[in-house]
């Protein structure tokens, strides 16, 4: 019977402390009944017979889990809210990290693009881990509270408030919104940060646009502000309406025009950026900047085309 004692002890080790004695006692009685019944049929039982019965009952951990099923970290009914909160918090942390890293990048004299990207990824990962752990801990605590069954049949919604059953693209994903927010935040910091930068730091920047181009960008940054406002509105609505599509087309068209206007203007590059001229001449730099701006203009232009098609199909 040593095997049975060892088996019951192994099951008890997997159980919560307050249930160990009771379940162990009952399990032991059930196994002994089963062995008695087997002994009535077969006569004296060997260790191998007992081991076969115990093996059939299952691993001690499995048996313990059958008596006390493991509780999920987060209650199933909280999962949609948990995922939504995670997306929202991580989505907000990303633009904030873009802001912080871009400011560090611009104020640093020895931070290259690769270090900027690593800094951005590392900083976001750091914040994301903290955010993930905090949100999970909060939902874990909520899940430990007794379940509110009345919430299952909640009535605080109206079928009339549901949005139209449109095509899949009409639902605006959080990822799209936060990517736009991060892009606009990046643009604003890049355009306006040099205004507050100390003169000696400004002089040591590796690439710098001409005063004329910078002046134009300051005016064009109004579009980035409008973009942030539109993204925040999308965050509230989460559904493309005709008006929102029209607004998005107008904004992207303005961005295309502004970018192409800037590409057509000259000079784009500050002629005092002497350190660059050791590798390229000014004409090459100007041409590269122009082509880069034309490529950048293609992104909002693509969105204009996409939204026009969507508008026509609505």
């Amino acid at each position, binding site marked *: 019977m040593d095997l049975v004692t060892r088996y019951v002890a192994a099951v008890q080790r997997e159980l919560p402390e307050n249930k160990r004695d009771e379940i162990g006692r009952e399990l032991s*009685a*059930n196994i002994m*009944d089963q062995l008695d019944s087997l002994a009535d049929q077969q006569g004296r039982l060997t260790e191998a017979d007992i081991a076969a019965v115990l093996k059939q009952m299952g691993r001690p951990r499995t048996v313990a889990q059958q008596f006390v099923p493991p509780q999920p970290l987060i209650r199933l009914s909280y999962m949609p809210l948990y995922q939504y909160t995670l997306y929202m918090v991580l989505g907000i942390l990303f633009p904030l990290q873009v802001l912080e890293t871009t400011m560090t990048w611009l104020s640093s004299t020895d931070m290259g693009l690769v270090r900027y990207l690593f800094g951005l990824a590392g900083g976001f990962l750091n914040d994301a881990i903290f955010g993930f752990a905090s949100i999970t801990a909060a939902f874990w605590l909520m899940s430990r509270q007794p379940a509110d069954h009345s919430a299952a049949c909640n009535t605080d919604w109206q079928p009339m408030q549901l949005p139209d059953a449109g095509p899949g693209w009409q639902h605006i994903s959080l990822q799209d919104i936060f990517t736009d927010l991060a892009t606009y935040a990046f643009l604003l910091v890049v355009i306006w940060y040099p205004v507050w930068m100390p003169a000696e730091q400004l002089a040591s920047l590796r690439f710098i646009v001409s005063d004329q181009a910078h002046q134009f960008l300051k005016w064009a940054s109004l579009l980035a502000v409008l973009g942030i406002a539109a993204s925040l509105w999308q965050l509230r609505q989460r559904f493309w309406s005709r008006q929102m599509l029209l607004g998005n087309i107008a904004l992207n068209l303005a961005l295309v025009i502004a970018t192409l206007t800037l590409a057509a203007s000259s000079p784009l590059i500050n002629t005092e950026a002497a350190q660059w001229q050791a590798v390229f001449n000014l004409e090459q730099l100007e041409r590269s900047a122009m082509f880069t701006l034309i490529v950048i203009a293609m992104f909002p232009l693509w969105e204009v085309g996409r939204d026009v098609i969507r508008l026509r199909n609505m």
Partner: protein
Amino acid sequence: MTTAQLDKMRLELRRGVLVLAVLASLKQPHYGYSLRKQLQGRGIDIDEGTLYPLIRRLADQGLLDSEWRQGEGRERRYYQLSDLGATLLEQLTDEWRVLNAALDSLLDIATEESN
């Protein structure tokens, strides 16, 4: 349909019915092993890993009363339907009969159509 799919569906089908079978059997007091034998005798084969935790769960919900008794040189925990359990069994039995009648008629139609 694969054997795994069939096993899964059979398990789902039996899960709710087992509660009814256990409650109905515990009109008389039983300990774990004797209950399992009685169910087996009636054609309901249920493994100990399912039955023993199920009885404990029903007792925790107040549907069964339990007490430890000495017998044949060993202690055993006996379970019996509580008043609350008896009321619930009555309601579940009515529910089962209605469902069973409806299902029977549905299955008869399905059998006729396939023939």
